């Protein structure tokens, strides 16, 4: 009997010439990965027929469809995932106002801005970034205006924030495989300040203790939580974030209207 992983089924059934010639991506060599993946993501975005073919196939591919999400402030549609090569492509679309959240990632990735513009902050946490880090320990070192057409490649340990508070900002992400189970996030701006204060007064906790693995709906400046992979999320949580067909169809149409596909 043939044993095959779901990701191989997805890749083997969806031939993409652009990715055929690419070997496994060495994300540990960031400059080399940047050169390769920035070329790939630009070529992919420029090939609207390919972009369209993959986008419209997502709802028929159970492997990809399970990875599409409606998050609190943005939606994600996964277009391609070749685990053997460390090459996953997904769309990231802003749907609500976002706070400045300093965070690093479970994986390194390349990002191409397709639409909109935002201020990209790169931070340094002098004594490391963990549950003991205070908001003032995290200071911006680079403030970059990311505009449509601009591309960056980022190391999984780099601390940054890319708050898409301009609704309709859309990015294309080409990411590698995860190299850690979870990655910390810190609120540099409050989310629902009054409610957060009330909660603090109701049940003041000494220090942070164990950080939550769920993004909080209210947060003070300095609140931290872990961002985790789907395999660490409960079924209930996955169900809450699952993208609806209506939303997906909306995005297919919107991306076409915008001339992105």
């Amino acid at each position, binding site marked *: 009997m043939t044993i095959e992983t779901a990701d191989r089924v*997805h890749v083997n059934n969806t031939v993409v010439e652009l990715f055929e010639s690419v070997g496994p991506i060495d994300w540990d060599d960031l400059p080399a990965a940047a050169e390769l993946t920035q070329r790939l993501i630009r070529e992919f975005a420029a090939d609207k027929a390919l972009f369209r073919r993959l986008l419209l196939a997502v709802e028929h591919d159970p492997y990809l469809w399970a990875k599409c999400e409606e998050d609190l402030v943005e939606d994600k549609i996964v277009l391609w995932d070749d685990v053997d090569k460390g090459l996953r492509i997904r769309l990231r679309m802003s749907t609500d106002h976002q706070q400045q959240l300093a965070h690093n990632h479970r994986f390194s990735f390349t990002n191409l801005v397709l639409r909109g513009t935002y201020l990209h902050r790169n931070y340094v946490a002098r004594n490391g970034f963990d549950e003991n880090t205070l908001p003032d320990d995290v200071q911006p070192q680079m403030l*970059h205006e990311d505009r449509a057409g601009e591309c960056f490649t980022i190391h999984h340990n780099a601390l940054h924030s890319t708050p898409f508070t301009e609704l309709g900002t859309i990015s294309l992400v080409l990411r590698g495989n995860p190299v850690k189970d979870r990655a910390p996030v810190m609120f540099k701006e409050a989310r629902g300040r009054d409610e957060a204060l009330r909660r603090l007064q109701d049940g003041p906790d000494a220090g942070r203790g164990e950080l939550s693995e769920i993004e909080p709906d209210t947060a003070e400046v300095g609140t931290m939580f872990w961002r985790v992979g789907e395999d660490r999320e409960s079924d209930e949580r996955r169900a809450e974030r699952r993208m609806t067909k*209506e*939303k997906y*169809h*909306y995005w297919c149409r919107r991306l076409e209207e915008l001339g992105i596909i």
Partner: protein
Amino acid sequence: MSPTRDVVGTSDLDIFADTLAGGAGGRRPADRPDRLPVATSPLALRIRRAYEETRIAAGRGAREPLAARGGPLPEPLPYQGETVIDYLDQLTVDWSDFERAGEITRDVVHRLADDKETLRALVYGVEDKPELLAMCERHQLLDYIVLYDALDRGVRLRLHISTEDHFDRPHDHRFSFSSRIVTGGYTHTWYHMDGDLYAGGPDPQARQYLSRHNPDPRAEGLLDRLTPHIVRREEPGSCYTLHHSAIHTTFTTPDTVSLFLRGPVEKDRSVIMDKAEGTLWWRFGRENEPEQRREQKAMGLDAYRQIRERLEKLGVI
């Protein structure tokens, strides 16, 4: 670690193949809702309510952006119809507020880069301003012309022109700055440095190691603590603000020109490294450098005129 991979059986494969065959033909989905559907989960609704409470508590109007500082790029700052020069003449930038200083100075370099006439006037003006001409310098990787100087108000404006030499040299600066690419471009790498190069405070010995021909022997192994954290291509129109503590490289292509607005000095020296050689040396301000070094890098009138001519040919001014 390896990513989670679900094992599927043969029957699953058939279903996959069928669904893919049906969907990969590029058929468009049938339903087309007209408006952006926002997230409707209980959690998303609670967050949206919390936002509203925050806004009302802060007394902000409904049309005002929620998180101005985390949000989209601000509208251009208000001007009363004056020129960029008039604006510069009354501008004071407080670089201790890095975010705000960045916002103001990125706006200035954007406006100037788009205003060729004013830029040309500033470049030509240097010929008649010996105090500015005296500050123009030539280096191995770039030449720069100082266009405007009011460092007591937190503003010194320079025009950077790449030379024929292009190297990947990680470095930091003695001051924070904003930069806007006018023409050309470069590969821009932002590094993470494990540890603090300046933790020991003032370092009189560093003054001995001022060139790649005479690197600091104490720096053995330091370059191994450098990890590239962001790599991007800066093109005409690209704009960013960099803190003096940031270590970066700008690996230029020929004829790259950028507008550079710097703030006051925040430390006595800055570092520069040669990755290929694994070496490191220091740069000090003009006032702290030996006379010979100052003479070596001074631009002078003839070179200034040549560079000005080159800027004209490039269509920058």
